[in-house]
């Protein structure tokens, strides 16, 4: 099968690969580039575990063709902490026990990050809406909602 080139930045680093046309971004990130933080839970766009940020927007990497990401800036959960210091969202997830098995966590954090980028002081309803595309089978969602609200509070205190 003919290979196509794809080039984008991943968490600030330049990446270039030759991939089979039709390869999903999830597959390219996990199996070609080696960033396994996005997870494949359904491969049909229903669970949200593969969520990444492409040019500031939340996207399902299992439904995104890698070749459409040429020139894009992609962020994943593995790129969130800087210099070993956790992002406020990551801290909040730890503090509220918002992870159990951890499989949905990277996708949840991506969805939450996009929310807080657009809406720094979200209401509880905003958080529920923002996480509505991400399935968690362990926590019952409440600790995750609390984590996002806590991170938003931490951000606004830092800004004040």
């Amino acid at each position, binding site marked *: 099968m003919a290979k196509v080139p794809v080039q984008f930045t991943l968490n600030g680093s330049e990446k270039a690969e030759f991939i089979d046309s039709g390869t999903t971004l999830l597959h390219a990130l*996990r199996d070609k580039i080696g960033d*396994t*933080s996005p997870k494949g839970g359904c*491969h049909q766009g229903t669970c949200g*575990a593969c969520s990444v940020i492409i040019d500031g927007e939340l996207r399902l990497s299992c439904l995104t063709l890698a070749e459409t990401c040429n020139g894009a800036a992609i962020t994943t959960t593995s790129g969130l902490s800087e210099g070993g210091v956790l992002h406020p969202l990551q801290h909040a997830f*730890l503090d509220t026990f918002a992870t159990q*098995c*951890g499989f949905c966590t990277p996708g949840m954090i991506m969805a939450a990050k996009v929310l807080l980028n657009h809406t720094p002081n979200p209401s509880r309803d905003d958080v529920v809406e923002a996480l509505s595309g991400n399935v968690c089978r*362990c926590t019952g969602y409440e600790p995750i909602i609390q984590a996002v609200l806590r991170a938003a509070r931490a951000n606004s205190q830092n800004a004040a």
Partner: protein
Amino acid sequence: MELRKSYFADVRKDDLHEIGQPRPRSDSPGHVTGKTAFFADRNFPGMLHLKMVRSPHHHARIRSIDTSEAEKHPGVVKIITAKDVPHNVYTILILIQIGPEDETVLADGKVRWKGEAVVAVLAETERAAQEAAAKVKVDYEVLPAVFDMEEALKPGAPLVNEFHGQNYYLYDSGECRKVRFGDVEAGFAAADHVLEQSYQSSPIEHAPTETTGCVVAPEGNDRFTCYTNTQAMFFTLDNASIILQMPGNKLHFVGGTVGGGFGGKVDVIVEPIAILGAKLTGRPVSFIYSREEEMQISSPRAAEKVVIRDGVMKDGRIVARKVTGYTDAGAYSRHSPYGAQKGAGHYPGPYTIPNVWIDTYCVYTNRTPSSAMRGFGVTIGDFALEVQMDKLARLIGMDPLEFRFINAYRDGDMKAHRQPTEGAALIECMQEASRAANWPVAEKFMAMSSYVKGA
């Protein structure tokens, strides 16, 4: 909500350092940074992908299997059928002497449920494996199937599983697990009211976000490392050892990180065939259930039917309980004989009843094999029992919570399966629930104790 210090004041210890203290989870930093290694995060050069050809029929004889077209498909490396599996007929609980072996790793001559694994295809890519699997031709002679437990138990019903010879698991106690305590018929005769109700449930899928699977890497010395999300590491290792007829020291299992299990990952389904694939090809093998397979193929919680007949006095005492429980194992045992047995011990509930008769059947049908899920064998029973308790309370015009205080088991009471009650806390739980839910009960019930004699 904190446990009141007045509960168990004379037996409890309060100088605990860990219990009651929040402690960070050791695995969470890996989860929030995306660094936790789930099995599917392992990638090896030259890894093959395994896809299963599955039965489209609920019950059928296999006349023939033709893999010639599939073998020619570009990218196909190996096709595995029943004859390639060293010990093809197994059962998980054989490790604790619960037999007979009744399930095939790959179907041999017959399929007993829709979705049963028939042929394994290994290819360079997932897509090639999927396409080749579609080219495997299996000639089936469709057989009559049975999907209802009570139908399956009737004479003349289609025989689901020849390894059992009848459509129920044969316990050492006979066709069902039995509990006999007191004289249940005398209890019914003496009762003011008798109420018989039947309760039924459907299979329930665990739906973990991470699907079942494993990645196997040959180590080059006839030893294999299996990265798996099994919830039952040593059950899986030992069963793989039996199925593959390989000593356990040739198998290195790496796991413990499970993306949601809930009991759905305690069966031994993906690992033996993936290890065999790695052995036969000398290459790493990945076998990961699709979301569709997770929902349709992995074992659900068993469907159950529970028939409860209770004799109750006007003063609130339950004097007789007879329960017939049916657990739908589907086509194979897996953990269901154990689930049905647990039900037998559990059906009196946390209540002291002087006359008890319980029969629980583990029934085979042509449905998806069921297995473990969160309190399997007792969860559906608890639903049935507590609905029954509410109905009994209504029948005699009593408050449902007070009715439970009257019947609650207490330390020293003999349970129907002849274990004396120890460490009971039902009364204290109900007292706290009464306060928390603002559902007041008479003062005498609030003064009761699970363990103080005469209280």
